[in-house]
């Protein structure tokens, strides 16, 4: 009995983990390239959730199709957010920067609350309201589709980072910003691109999450914290780290839920991450690569 | 008496300091020279407690300072300056030195007196109320020495204190060092400038690739074949 529970937990966790991985990858990428902790990331996800919901509510369009409109808009917003606002905070003392992005988080979250109030909204798309049953495993289509979409985007992102010039440039900035500048790369522009990509990933994650869970403003802080936690756990600046971290966190949450400790799931995750901070701050992926 | 016994420092596969031994007392100025990457600053870091040796130890009189944390080594009497100066930028010159003075002073008034005395000694008294961030490089070097001097060290370790200074400025700093030494404080210098080594170095050691390749007076060491090879490469020795 316990084994089947664990199995369900793990499968569900892997699916959830892929979604969390995508959520965090954008954050992690921006962190690696621009060295900025974008604590407002969760708010961007929240807004993507609302955008997705509104689009679906008014046009009846399948959210994953609507997503194709939201993603480019998100990219542009992310790009200019860095270029015009966040870049300015880079002159302030180092630890002020996280405060700066927390301020942005608060501003965006309450802006959302202003427009949408604290009432929870649910995006329940007809075509996704089926279940998938295979033996003891009981899954919702929403979960499966969300996970698949996340996986596809993660793969595309990986290909972009490893096979294109842009990807190489971003990698160079992450490795050595001064060196990159000397080599002629426009680090400010690339940092903004990284945040644009982060926002685009947030848009996809937001759409996926909107189909899975109720939408309300407090989610913003939750998601920001998850992004930070997954990134640190897996490895800051590393995409494979985000995926590893996402899967681990996803599994811990899912297993906790099926074994009845769901409420404490996040506390367990946070405690684990705190330990990682102490022992291996570069994240698990660096331990594995050794 | 500062005693370095068979100290080696390994970073993974790289040997930065290879079985170095040396002794020095407060009565002579010791200069450590050598080409870049010879391991001089690494050795200094070991002497001052910022790095633990992979093997060997450093003894200061009866204390084994190689197993002590950096701040305790400083309190024991072996204090270092940094190659790239580290002033406390948001503090005045006086306050900078007071941080050092508080190490051994028994209260605010005593620390202040000591700090002012030291500032006088290094020639920064007039600038005591300036913000450290406004000082010129020679003055920053003086400040670095002053801070360390205020801790009342037995040995002063100066890491490339002349770096970035032109020759007249170097001679000024050298004069300051000689005055300090005359007070009975032991001085160890990591130095590149041959002029300074000749002026200050009563006891000179040359390092290359982590090893000690020559030891003696300044004249002896500079003229030694091993040192010529290390600095100028094999081909030029024929010319000597």
């Amino acid at each position, binding site marked *: 009995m316990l084994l089947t529970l664990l199995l369900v937990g793990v499968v569900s966790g892997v699916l959830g983990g892929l979604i969390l991985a995508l959520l965090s990858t954008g954050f992690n990428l921006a962190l690696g390239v621009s060295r900025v902790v974008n604590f407002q990331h969760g708010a961007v996800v929240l807004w993507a959730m609302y955008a997705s919901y509104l689009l679906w509510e008014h046009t009846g369009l399948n959210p994953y199709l609507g997503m194709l409109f939201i993603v480019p808009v998100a990219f542009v917003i992310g790009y200019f957010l860095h270029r015009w*606002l966040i870049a300015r905070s880079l002159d*302030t003392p180092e*630890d*002020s920067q*996280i*405060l700066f992005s*927390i*301020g*942005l988080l*608060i*501003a*965006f*979250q*309450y*802006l959302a*609350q*202003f*427009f949408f*109030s604290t009432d929870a909204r649910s995006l329940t798309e007809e075509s996704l309201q089926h279940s998938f049953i295979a033996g003891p495993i009981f899954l919702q289509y929403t979960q499966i589709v969300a996970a698949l979409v996340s996986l596809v985007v993660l793969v595309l992102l990986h290909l972009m980072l490893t096979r294109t010039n842009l990807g190489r440039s971003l990698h160079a900035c992450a490795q050595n910003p001064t060196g990159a500048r000397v080599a002629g790369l426009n680090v400010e522009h690339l940092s903004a691109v990284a945040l644009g990509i982060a926002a685009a990933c947030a848009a996809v994650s937001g759409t996926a999450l909107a189909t899975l869970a109720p939408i309300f403003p407090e989610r913003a*802080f939750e998601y920001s914290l998850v992004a930070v*936690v997954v990134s640190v756990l897996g490895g800051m600046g590393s995409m494979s780290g985000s995926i590893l971290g996402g899967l681990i966190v996803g599994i811990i949450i899912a297993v906790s839920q099926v074994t009845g400790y769901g*409420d404490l799931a*996040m*506390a367990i995750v*946070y405690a684990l991450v*705190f330990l990682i*901070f*102490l022992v291996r*701050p570069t994240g698990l992926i660096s331990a594995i690569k050794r | 008496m500062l005693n370095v016994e068979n100290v080696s420092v390994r970073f993974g596969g790289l040997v930065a300091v290879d079985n170095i031994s040396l002794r020095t007392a407060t009565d002579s100025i010791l200069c450590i020279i050598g080409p870049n990457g010879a391991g001089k600053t690494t050795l200094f870091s070991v002497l001052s407690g*910022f790095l633990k040796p992979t093997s060997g130890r450093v003894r200061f009189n009866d204390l084994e300072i190689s197993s002590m*944390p*950096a*701040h*305790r080594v*400083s*309190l024991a009497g072996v*204090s270092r300056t*940094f190659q790239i100066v*580290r*002033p*406390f930028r*948001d*503090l*005045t010159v006086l*306050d900078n030195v007071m*941080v*050092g003075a*508080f*190490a051994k002073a028994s209260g605010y008034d005593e620390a*202040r007196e000591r700090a002012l005395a030291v500032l006088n000694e290094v020639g920064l008294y*007039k600038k*005591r*109320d*300036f*913000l450290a961030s*406004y000082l*010129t490089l020679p003055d920053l070097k003086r400040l670095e020495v002053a801070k*360390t001097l*205020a*801790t009342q060290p037995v040995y002063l370790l100066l890491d490339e204190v002349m770096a970035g200074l032109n020759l007249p400025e170097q001679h000024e700093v050298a004069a300051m060092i000689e005055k300090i030494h005359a007070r009975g404080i032991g001085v160890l210098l990591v130095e590149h400038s041959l002029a300074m080594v000749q002026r200050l170095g009563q006891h000179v050691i040359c390092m290359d690739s982590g090893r000690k390749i020559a030891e003696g007076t300044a004249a002896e060491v500079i003229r030694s074949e091993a040192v010529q090879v290390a600095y100028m490469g094999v081909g030029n020795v024929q010319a000597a």
Partner: protein
Amino acid sequence: MLSKLTDSFRQQGAALWLGAAAVVVVAAVAAPWINPYYTRVMTMGLLCGYLAASWNLIGGYAGQMSLGHALFFAIGSYSVALLARLQDVPLVAALPIAVVLSVALAWIIASICFRYALRGIYFAVGTLLLAEIARILVINSDTLGRSQGLQIPAMEGARNFNFGSDLPFFYIFLAMAVALALFCLVLERCKLGYDLVALREQEEGAQALGVDTNAIKRMSFVISAGLTSVGGVVYAGLVRYVEPGYDLSLTITLFMVMGAVLGGRGTALGPFLGGVVVVIVQELLITVGSQFGTTSVSALAQMIYGLFFVVVLLVFPRGIVGQLLHRRIDRKATQGSVGATVEAS
């Protein structure tokens, strides 16, 4: 002691401290005559200033950004609530218990964190995680009141801070603020004060001068925690209700942090000014917002509050008092010493 104070006043300007003293005296005298609403706002302002100044010990002087300070505030407030409900313990007896708990917990946390050299963003997020873990545990505990929180039963007498009116709280917070400000003033000229600034600016440089940086980080974290919990205790006496959504939230931590940042991290008076401004801005926004009637406008007020935070960080990186002091030292130095030349480095 005298030379410490004269040096401080000479460097910071007696005007600043005289001005602060004047404000305190005026406030103390005028308080009973002012509309109680304003007194209430000022009381909260003083609380925020006190908390900001407590945070300032670790976040300003030592330069280690803790984002988990809500933890210690909540230990203060929850101690009062629990001890009153479970054992009829009066508030004044709960106070030392709360402080001991905070100090002990802070000691453990600091020992672990600084032993593993948790710095900068790792320390910030690490402390935030610890506070979040505590919040989740509280939300899931019946004894601790879950998310609803706990009501503190009305208990008789001054030892329970039951004064019949809120005015005494104004004076209590004022006294706490004055005491802490003076403490910081003296601290700045003690060895610990100098060591903390040195640690903040150049950690290795400080070690080379004999400063035990780990020990003083821990010391300032512990003192800061104890002081913060006292704030929590008195707050519980005033509000008589504790809840995790506020007491253990990032919201209250940000009050402390923003107060210190706005006023000036690492200054003795800055956080108090910052704390008062933060509360006044919040009140103004809410009041103006409620003129428009709907609760959604209070969300707009919060949003502006968040933006305010952003703007402050850009415009006053040193904080108001911090900027003033920096300029003053600057000016004095360039006018000062005869015969010395200054070149900008």
